[in-house]
């Protein structure tokens, strides 16, 4: 379940035109999509935004994995819809607002689905964020799949000692999770301590400005994609803001 939801935000290596773009361009494209979904207040706007989001997702072969997360966010969307109706919005408006939520989740997930932690690191460097912050963030992101795998292994070990995780009411199940959560947290803490030591013995932080092996450059393809997206985005933004 946990895995299923998070699956929509975890990078997996796929070869597509979109994946190969420079991470900065991907960030630009998805920010544009997120901006548009935030500004979608009417059915035609929503159709344009969601259509584009899905098109990009299918172009990058991530439609299926995004779909899982969207199916989950649909639960929230329905809640939003019901509340809107109860508060007295029209059906159309309630529908637009709830779908807008789905669109925001979808457009955000595209960036994370197609950008590896390494690329993310480069983007953050490019923005000149502090090195320790970048390192902390990238490490945390890298740890997520490791933690998930850990959690599965721990659940297996405890089930093998007779722990029932699939039965009983919700309170019982939540309480039954402490044999899973405790080793998970302990492992994470121990691991981070070990990581810190392992980094120090390899001279992390010894020099002010460490050197780099690769500095990513924008290729022609990236430039074309960036310019194209901006030329499409600006008129759409104008249309969204002033014409609908």
């Amino acid at each position, binding site marked *: 379940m946990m895995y299923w939801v998070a699956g929509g935000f975890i990078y997996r290596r796929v070869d597509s035109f979109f994946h190969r773009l420079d991470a900065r361009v991907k960030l630009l494209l998805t920010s544009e999509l997120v901006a548009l979904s935030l500004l979608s207040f009417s059915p035609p706007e929503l159709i344009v935004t969601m259509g584009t989001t899905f098109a990009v997702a299918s172009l990058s072969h991530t439609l299926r994995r995004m779909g899982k997360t969207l199916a989950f966010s649909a639960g929230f969307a329905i809640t939003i819809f019901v509340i809107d109706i109860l508060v007295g919005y029209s059906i159309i408006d309630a529908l637009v607002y709830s779908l807008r939520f789905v669109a925001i989740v979808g457009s955000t997930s595209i960036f994370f689905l197609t950008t590896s932690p390494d690329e993310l690191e480069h983007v953050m460097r490019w923005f000149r964020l502090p090195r320790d912050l970048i390192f902390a963030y990238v490490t945390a992101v890298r740890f997520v799949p490791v933690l998930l795998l*850990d959690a599965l*292994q*721990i659940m*297996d*070990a*405890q*089930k*093998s*000692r*007779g*722990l*029932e995780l*699939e*039965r009983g009411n919700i309170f019982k199940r939540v309480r039954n999770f*402490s*044999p*899973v959560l*405790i*080793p998970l947290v*302990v*492992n994470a803490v*121990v691991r981070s301590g070990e990581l810190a030591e392992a980094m120090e013995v390899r001279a992390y932080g010894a020099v002010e400005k460490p050197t780099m092996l690769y500095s990513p450059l924008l290729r022609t393809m990236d430039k074309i994609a960036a310019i194209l997206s901006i030329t499409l985005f600006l008129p759409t933004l104008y249309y969204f803001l002033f014409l609908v």
Partner: protein
Amino acid sequence: MIEFENVSFKHQNGVTALRNINLKIEKGTLTAIVGENGAGKTTLVRHINGLLKPAEGAVRVFGINTKQQSVAQLSKKVGIAFQNPDNQLFSDTVTNETLFGLKNFGMSEKEQAERLEWALNFFDLARYRDVSPMLLSGGEKKRLCFASVLSWDPDVLILDEPTVGQDYYHKEKITSMIMDLLSKGKTAIIVSHDLEFLWPLQPRTLVMAQGQIIADGAMANVLSDDETIKRANLVRPQLLELAIELHLHPRVLSNVKEAAKLILVRSVGAR
């Protein structure tokens, strides 16, 4: 008793970890599973208590298809002690950690107290009973895992890499524990890279490579075969290597003393 029938299994990421496994393990026997990293040993044993269900084929334990029971139900009969202790220790004290399974299976207080004492004493953990499991050394943690599984006295015991991190004395202890269980009619399955540890036990040996069982039989016979050794990247136990070099029947040498005696007799005979 444990039966694999044409079992194949694929992990979520598409890695095929088991290919068409057929296997029968009888009650009261000792079986060792060996093979290089990633051969599929752990995946295979995870099928026995139902943690993994076969994609194709069927696994039956005591005649029951594992698909029809929960892991907790099967675990009552099949105890697995896993490779990594850090993935299971969570209690505040060694005592509570050992009692975890007993409570889950709803054993009476009297039984709990008895089994607890037995397990802590057997695994040399009695002096740590009120200590947090997190503070134990690596080898002690591992022993605590054994204790916490053997405590409910399962009919089948599966040990995944039991000797990793154990000193010589405690390896011997594990050997004697296995002998003890076998004499009580229990079934044991050991996954291990430590062929030197397995050799004195002379188990039935399954060699795995790339998700398949490539050899199955008495340890001495299986490991005498050069082809198997090469395919599975194994190194023979020293005593077996010696026997082969001396052109002896592979099972003759079960300890160094015996080997020395034989060599002496031979060298005298040669002169």
